[in-house]
């Protein structure tokens, strides 16, 4: 009887409600993955399939097949999960069969069966060309901050901005760091006046990974990124991988000492917290090139970061964080008295003081019954104070920033159509005094954005984004960006991207290094915002040779500026002239790289890069100074089978660079117009013990230095003085050793 009535109900339901809504159904299907070649489907036995929002679940059998009873109405959302794979969601409109094809989780993607992790993985899943620099790679650098984390990465280069302040800047696609956007956990960070030293304000041991996005970025984070995006992820209190206690001590032969430590505390099932500390101290006076100037300024830094994470279990995640930083650098001409007692008209002083406070909050809501739906909110306030004395030039600035962003994420019908949309607001107030001339700039920018992702099987993906912002000075700004990806096979991927960017330059703060010369900074017109288009094409071919993984990658990026602030160091021997671009300005960047585990646990990486960067200076198209046209990077890493010893060596070959020296002072002569090419070699050895590890190494082993980084060093107050033509290392060989201890 019961049996009969069930059939009756089912039949009635079927007729009345057609195929879309049916009661008490048995859904069948399978869970699998594509094999490495992307040709054959392999079944995944033991995977879990559950109905979103319910306790109904089934486990796949030996053939990867499942059957699942649904008590309610169709359609239902099914979620398939398997350890090491990304969850996948599908809508069951009828009783199937539903076929799941899971992708390996991004973090685990680089873990192959022999458990070697490619530390510089170019993601094969992401539509946007993104490299992930893992902790393993970060540890290869001597120590201790973001500016040193790219030594084994061909995409991002780091250069000193001048010979006296110790400030470093990154370059992507041959363009200055101001054109790439720095994010910390998706919050725009170290912008504006914080940018020139910002890289040294993010300690290495705090970082979990860095994602380097080449070319135009996502529209979610604003209109600013032109050449790329760097997103830093810090160690998270809620993650099991984060040790409960961590200590890193580091010392250098030049007496630089650093301390990094953090404490993680899980308060209960919901709350956890981490407190991170960093300090460094360098007080030795070095003048290897005998020019009377410090090769590196003395430096002190205290850096504190505390954050709290809350997880309600299934619905809500929240975070709050507080950062505090103080950093002081003293350099310039070597003298014995304290800086305060010296007349800056007789001794060339460099005193730079940075103070920064940052607070942020994040609130994320997820819907257990609808796994693809979520809402994320970020609010961040930043205060930065920079006081700089460089020779006779002074620059004091304070910047206050408020940032809010809210993102809503969902699917349209199936996971083939995903979208993110939201609003953002940024308030920025800059108070600056350059050579006793005061100015104030305050901006409010309110934006809306939408980003739509379309997936066609595992073959094709498109991410189309656009944002509209209302800027309190420049009114409406429209920013479109597009990313495409096509998989010929799972291992052969082609990507293309195009996007627009908009940025308001910081006349002085963007060019702090230029202050280190006796030239006047001269500005004759109203500065316009910078607008650029970036186009990129990338091909990635993964391969497996003798059971070991390798990747071949080739890409080309073009950046075209329609508006740009030109910093002209060519045209005038007494002035650095600032004016708006009239004519063309572009960067062409070509890069080819190959990485392969040549022998078991012996990894090679070889990369070659060409950067062709030109701007119109005074009506004439000329090569941008101090950008190497050619670069080669060669990295070898080896570890023993028991992983107790790790060896790493890197060779960087840097090609010739155009110099912008216009000194005509007969005493100092005319300098060459091009720098020589040179090589930098670094190596590091790590010994792992049961409870701690020690490491040591050397940077710039060949002890190469630029011979005369400062022009007219003996006459710092003459018109010939110029410390801005820096094309190579100033400080020579560095030798270091360190210790890491952690409690899991």
């Amino acid at each position: 009887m019961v049996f009969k009535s069930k059939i009756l109900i089912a039949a009635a339901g079927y007729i009345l409600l057609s195929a879309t809504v049916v009661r008490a159904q048995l859904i069948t299907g399978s869970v699998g993955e594509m094999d490495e070649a992307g040709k054959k489907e392999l079944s995944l036995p033991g995977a879990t399939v559950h109905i979103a929002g319910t306790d109904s679940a089934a486990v796949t059998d030996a053939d990867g097949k499942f059957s699942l009873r649904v008590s309610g109405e169709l359609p239902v959302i099914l979620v398939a999960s398997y350890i090491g794979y990304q969850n996948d969601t599908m809508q069951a409109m009828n009783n199937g069969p539903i076929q799941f094809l899971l992708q390996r989780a991004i973090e685990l993607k680089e873990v192959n069966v022999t458990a070697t992790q490619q530390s510089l993985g170019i993601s094969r899943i992401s539509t946007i060309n993104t490299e992930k620099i893992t902790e393993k790679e970060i540890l290869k650098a001597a120590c201790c901050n973001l500016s040193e984390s790219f030594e084994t990465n061909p995409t991002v280069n780091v250069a000193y901005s001048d010979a006296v302040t110790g400030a470093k800047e990154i370059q992507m696609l041959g363009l200055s760091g101001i054109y790439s956007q720095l994010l910390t956990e998706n919050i725009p960070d170290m912008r504006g006046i914080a940018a020139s030293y910002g890289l040294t304000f993010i300690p290495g041991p705090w970082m979990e990974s860095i994602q380097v996005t080449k070319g135009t970025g996502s529209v979610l984070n604003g209109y600013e990124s032109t050449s790329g995006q760097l997103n830093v992820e810090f160690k998270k209190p809620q993650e099991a991988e984060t040790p409960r206690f961590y200590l890193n001590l580091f010392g250098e032969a030049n007496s630089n000492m650093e301390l990094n430590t953090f404490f993680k505390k899980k308060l209960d099932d919901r709350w956890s917290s981490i407190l991170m500390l960093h300090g460094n101290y360098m007080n030795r006076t070095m003048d290897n090139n005998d020019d009377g100037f410090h090769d590196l300024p003395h430096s002190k830094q205290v850096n504190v970061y505390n954050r709290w994470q809350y997880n309600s279990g299934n619905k809500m995640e929240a975070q709050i964080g507080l950062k505090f930083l103080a950093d002081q650098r003293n350099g310039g001409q070597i003298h014995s008295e304290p800086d305060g007692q010296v007349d800056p008209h007789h001794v060339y002083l460099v005193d730079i003081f940075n103070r920064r406070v940052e607070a942020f909050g994040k609130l994320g809501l997820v819907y257990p019954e609808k796994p693809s739906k979520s809402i994320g909110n970020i609010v961040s306030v930043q205060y930065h104070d920079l006081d700089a004395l460089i020779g006779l030039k002074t620059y004091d600035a304070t910047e206050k920033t408020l940032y809010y962003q809210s993102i809503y994420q969902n699917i349209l019908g199936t996971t083939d159509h995903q979208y993110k949309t939201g609003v953002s607001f940024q308030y920025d107030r800059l108070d600056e005094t350059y050579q006793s001339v005061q100015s104030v700039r305050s901006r409010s920018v309110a934006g809306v954005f939408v980003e739509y992702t379309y997936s066609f099987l595992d073959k094709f993906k498109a991410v189309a984004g656009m944002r509209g912002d209302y800027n309190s000075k420049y009114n409406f700004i429209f920013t479109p960006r597009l990313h495409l990806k096509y998989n010929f096979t799972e291992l052969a991927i082609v990507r293309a991207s195009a996007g627009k960017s908009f940025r308001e330059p910081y006349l002085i703060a963007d060019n702090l290094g230029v202050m280190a010369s006796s030239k006047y900074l001269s500005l004759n017109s109203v500065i316009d915002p910078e607008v650029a288009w970036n186009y990129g094409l990338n091909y990635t071919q993964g391969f497996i040779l003798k059971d070991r993984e390798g990747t071949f990658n080739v890409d080309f990026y073009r950046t075209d500026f329609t508006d740009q602030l030109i910093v002209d160091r060519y045209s005038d021997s007494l002035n650095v002239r600032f004016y708006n671009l009239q004519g063309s300005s572009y960067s062409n960047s070509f890069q080819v790289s190959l990485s392969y585990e040549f022998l078991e646990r012996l990894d090679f990486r070889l990369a070659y890069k060409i950067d062709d960067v030109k701007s119109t200076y005074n009506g004439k198209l000329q090569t941008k100074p101090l950008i190497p046209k050619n670069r080669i990077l060669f990295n070898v890493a080896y570890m023993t089978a028991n992983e107790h010893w790790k060896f790493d060596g890197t060779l960087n070959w840097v090609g010739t660079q155009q110099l912008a020296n216009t000194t005509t002072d007969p005493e100092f002569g005319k300098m060459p117009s091009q720098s020589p090419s040179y090589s930098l070699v670094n190596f590091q050895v790590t010994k792992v013990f049961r409870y701690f590890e020690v490491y040591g190494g050397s940077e710039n082993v060949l002890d190469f230095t630029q011979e005369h980084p400062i022009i007219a060093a003996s006459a710092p107050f003459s018109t010939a003085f110029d410390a801005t033509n820096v094309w190579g290392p100033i400080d020579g060989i560095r030798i270091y050793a360190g210790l890491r201890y952690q409690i899991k």
Partner: protein
Amino acid sequence: MKKLSIFFLFLTLAFQLQGQPESAEVKIKTSAICETCKKTIEHGMSFEKGVRSAKLDVETKVLSVVYNPSKTDENKLRVALTKIGYDADSLKANPKAFHKLPECCQAPGHH
């Protein structure tokens, strides 16, 4: 160039550390559940006497240990694994060690 050759000397040295004679391999079923367990087990086992390498496959929970049979044997390795806090085939994990494991590795249902 001289300095460059020192750098390559380190690499050659590293290779020579490898050339060892006899070795045996054992596969042990463990109670590992996640990547953190994998790290804990591989790190801990690699410091056991006679062990040349230890690799865990998280999906199958099988640990493969390559070792020098003149210095240790399969049973000693299983006991060593229980002292790290994991089941080794039929041997149960040492409860004290188990409770010291990172939280995510102390799966409910065990002990």
